């Protein structure tokens, strides 16, 4: 079995009846261990909904999400909590994703405590130090409040928090699009480094084709809730088959 995550015929529908929105339609794809899988498309195409369904922030309406041999699409309670240790998420907005009234290190200690990792606060604090070093931050900074950090630093903190549970898959929902270009490159390098050192796989959701071309191994193009094209990143971007992919590429000046 060479697949870490395998999604089949996944549907996400918001609402009921006439007002319902079919955000994700019959989507099928897989991610291998240690692979960076890109998901591109314009805003509103359902790529974020798909990411949220994979991490189970949104309940899928139908279909299966197979993770390491278990169907996680309908997990609840304790089993869902265990799944949280395998798959984590980094959000687009580094300003909103940290609790403003909590020291960033305390937020991570809190997560470790909930998952009973480490025996006491001392051990958990030591783990926070390790995590901060792993994402390239000064360990002393862990005991500060979020408003004292820049956007790039905050995104590093978010990544450290996501790594606290030692996941195998990280859903990165536009992780760099809120950052300055120079900072974007640093964060992308960090993600590459983590992939290499921890065999971490990524579901990399983005609208930025240049970024996707740089970091992803394989890519899926989403349009109107459906995957219209999927393949190795070089094939898809250099030799697009689907009309929508061509349009998407034409819209980017550098391609």
């Amino acid at each position, binding site marked *: 079995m060479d697949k870490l995550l395998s999604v089949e015929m996944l549907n996400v529908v918001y609402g009921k009846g006439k007002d319902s929105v079919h955000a994700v339609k019959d989507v099928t794809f897989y991610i291998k261990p240690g692979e960076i899988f890109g998901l591109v498309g314009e805003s509103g195409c359902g790529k974020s909904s798909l990411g949220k369904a994979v991490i189970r922030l949104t309940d899928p309406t139908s279909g299966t999400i197979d993770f390491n041999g278990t169907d996680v699409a309908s997990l609840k309670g304790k089993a869902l909590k265990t799944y949280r240790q395998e798959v984590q*998420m980094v959000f687009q907005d580094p300003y909103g*994703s*940290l609790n403003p009234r909590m020291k960033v290190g305390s937020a991570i200690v809190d997560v470790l405590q909930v998952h009973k990792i480490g025996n006491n606060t001392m051990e958990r604090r030591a783990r926070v130090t390790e995590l901060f070093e792993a994402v390239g931050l000064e360990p002393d900074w862990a005991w500060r409040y979020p*408003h004292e950090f820049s956007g790039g630093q905050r995104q590093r903190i978010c990544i450290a928090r996501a790594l606290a549970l030692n996941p195998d898959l990280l859903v990165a929902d536009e992780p760099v699009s809120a950052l300055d270009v120079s900072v974007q490159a640093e964060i992308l390098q960090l993600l590459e480094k983590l992939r290499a050192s921890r065999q971490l796989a990524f579901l990399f959701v983005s609208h930025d084709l240049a970024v996707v071309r740089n970091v992803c191994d394989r890519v899926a193009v989403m349009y109107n809730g459906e995957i219209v094209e999927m393949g190795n990143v070089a094939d898809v971007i250099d030799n697009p088959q689907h009309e929508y992919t061509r349009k998407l590429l034409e819209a980017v000046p550098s391609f």
Partner: protein
Amino acid sequence: MKNKSQSLWGDAWRRLKKNRLAMFCLGLVIFFTLLAVYGEIVYRYYEIKDVASPYSLTNLDIAYEAPSSRHWMGTDGLGRDVMARLVQGVRIAYKVGIITSMIAIPIGVILGCLAGFFGGKVDDFIVWLYSTFASMPGLLFILAIAMVVPDQGLLGVYLGIGLTTWVGLCRLVRGEVMKHKEQTYVQAAKALGLGSGRIMFKHILPNISHVIIVTFSLRFPAAVGTEVIMSFLGIGVQGEPSWGLMIDSARMRLWQGMWWEMTFVTIALFLLVLAFNLLGDALRDALDPRLND
């Protein structure tokens, strides 16, 4: 990046310090608080010694004395010192303000958090509950509760005010929690496997604590005012020098020129209510999270 870690409360305090009126009101609130503590000590002292306190001893020889160097605020119809009774009134006002808050605030916060966080049926039920409470005329409802409490006196006042004034806070907390629930940090907390209780009370609640503090400083004087009205109507405090009772007894002789008891009690009530309200407003500005960063 700042070098020293500074708390958000520190920022709020700096902003509050710049507001002179707020600092004056804070001084007044501290002054009243000290008076209340002093009043409690005096009350306990006479209770332990098991003698009648001077402020409740009748001495008809000196009834209705105008303010003088011996009785700064004069004496009332039974010859009791108005100033000493006024201080005891502060004690009762504080007890009412604090104890009713300890009843109303937890109810409002817990129900508001549950309604805002879970939504759906839980929300429907809590909204129905507080709408029902809010639809009844406040004072009548308070009087009804106070009447059915067997032990007439302060307990009825506490329960009456405490059980009816949580609605406003509940609404505010519900709205704030709904707002925060959609924020990414709550989504992240969910994705990290944190439980609902922990997210509500450890993560969201500190972010809306300013609402609770402001509500406390605004409902405190309201509770004091309600107690005065209840005592004035004869349903609240009995046998203790509440401001309401003092106003009630003073009104009888006001037309004969015995102005001092009414005047000083009214001034004290006015200052206490005003100080808390202005301080509450200033706190609301100082703690506004939009001004942070």
